[in-house]
């Protein structure tokens, strides 16, 4: 555990010292700020469109941060040959992968915390109320979802050679699931037989990232999600992340390094 933690810290430090995160955050602040300064029918209390834009930017930034951070980890270790002095120490490959996963996940969590704080500020200035628990639920679910994304990006970075193609694939897959995952079963019902079962199978196999997207609930100030449902969703994400991490370990465990 100490080893995993030590490796994770390096990843977090890397994110803190690189510019990507700051660029995305400042971009989000600027875009939200300009959107908020627009005069719409002389009404300063319109807020939901602003929450929508801000959350959209947060979701995009979250995906970009999680995927780019994770996709470059192992290729960079190999390219810069830092993996050699590391694995020459009493570190198993499993610990190495877990450390990378934990680091990327914590780093994205840190980024999310900053983003959601900003979101809270924006909506509080306009709405004069601060539903902390709702935001906490949304941020938590978002973070759990990104855990799954980090895990499969890590697997991808071992399976696919080029980090850029892995990043692109993971991004397209994540966005695809977020937009369409919910509807695959209904699309399947309209298809002819072999395809119907096939698509239904895909529907059950893919990680339903869109479940974790509760933006509509906080944009429109709905009530809290039931906590046991949040717990279930957390378990759901943990199961998928574990599955992808196991896959990554299985592929990486005997892979020659050179």
């Amino acid at each position, binding site marked *: 555990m100490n080893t995993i933690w030590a490796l994770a810290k390096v990843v977090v430090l890397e994110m803190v010292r690189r510019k990507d995160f700051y660029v995305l955050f400042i971009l989000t602040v600027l*875009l939200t700020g*300009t*959107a908020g*300064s*627009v*005069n*719409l*029918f*002389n*009404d300063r*209390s*319109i*807020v*939901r*469109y602003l929450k*929508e*834009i801000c959350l*959209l930017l947060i*979701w*995009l930034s979250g995906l970009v941060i999680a995927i780019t951070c994770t996709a470059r980890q192992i290729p960079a270790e190999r390219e810069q040959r830092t993996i050699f002095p590391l694995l020459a120490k009493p570190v198993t490959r499993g610990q190495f992968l877990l450390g990378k996963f934990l680091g990327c996940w914590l780093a994205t969590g840190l980024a999310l915390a900053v983003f959601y704080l900003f979101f809270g500020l924006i909506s509080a200035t306009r709405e004069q109320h601060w539903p902390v628990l709702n935001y906490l639920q949304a941020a938590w*679910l978002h973070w759990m979802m990104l855990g799954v994304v980090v895990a499969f990006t890590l697997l991808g970075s071992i399976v696919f050679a080029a980090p850029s193609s892995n990043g692109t694939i993971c991004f397209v897959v994540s*966005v695809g699931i*977020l*937009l*369409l995952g*919910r*509807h695959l*079963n*209904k*699309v399947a*019902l309209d298809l002819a037989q072999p395809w119907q079962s096939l698509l239904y199978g895909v*529907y*059950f196999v893919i990680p*339903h990232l*869109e*479940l*974790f*997207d*509760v*933006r*509509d*609930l906080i*944009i*429109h100030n*709905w009530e809290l*999600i*039931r906590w046991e*449902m949040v717990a*279930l*969703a957390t378990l759901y994400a943990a199961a998928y992340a574990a599955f992808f991490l196991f896959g990554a370990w299985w592929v990486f465990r005997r892979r020659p390094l050179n």
Partner: protein
Amino acid sequence: MPSLPLLLSALALAVAFAAGGRLLLWEQAHRQDKGSVLRLLLGESRRAFANHVFLKADAYFHQGFYPSVFDAPAPVSKTHLAEATEEAHHHDHSRGHAHDRHRDWLEAFGCNFQPAEHRHLEGLGQAREILPWLRLAAALDPQRVDTYTVTAYWLREQLNQVKEAEAFLREGLRANPDSHEILFELGRLYAENERDVLRARIVLELAIAKWIRQEASLPSPDHVSYRQIMGQLAALEERAGNYERALAHYTRLHRVSPNPAAVQQRIDEMRFKSAAPVVKPP
């Protein structure tokens, strides 16, 4: 206002991502012809996109609850939002999404994480939240008349922003000088909110003239609009005490009304009042 285009693109992006999945599918499912996707990508894209944005406003009206194409059994020709404007009865289309009709456990589970109940924006001017989307829809497709009339309705009726409603309708009129719908909405604003009989009369009579030029010769003219304009005009004159004019309008309305008995009652009343000497207020 230099940041308006930026805002509009940000909102457009939001639609593309947030609702893009369901709305795009909605589009494809309801336009069965094969050419539609191409048209969507080319010249028509702006217009199609404006439709999505309009649907987004509708989703906002329902506090984010919006059944996808697969849940709603039949394509709705007019959005719920537009229907609300016309004060048609609210049919509750949440039944397609009711909790006991899930196809599988994933769907049932997913319901906990999205608005899954039919709810409208209400209370202290919450309706204002749909305005940015309507603004965007107008920017994307200035020829879409619905946008202006719906926006003006909400501004005027729910938010008490008559000045803004008038300005927006005038903007719509510049883009669609021949629209009797916009003229009607503008006339209604002058008549009901500003009590400006003169301007209301001019605008509403212009609306009738436009309607006649455009619709009268069609095989199936839009009688609903005609009745609305005529009814508004007659009520205006009646309130102003011009019973003879009101009588004339009610008579024209009588020919197309689905409820001629009620109109006949108004006609009789007008006959009676116009025959009686006009009592000037002291």
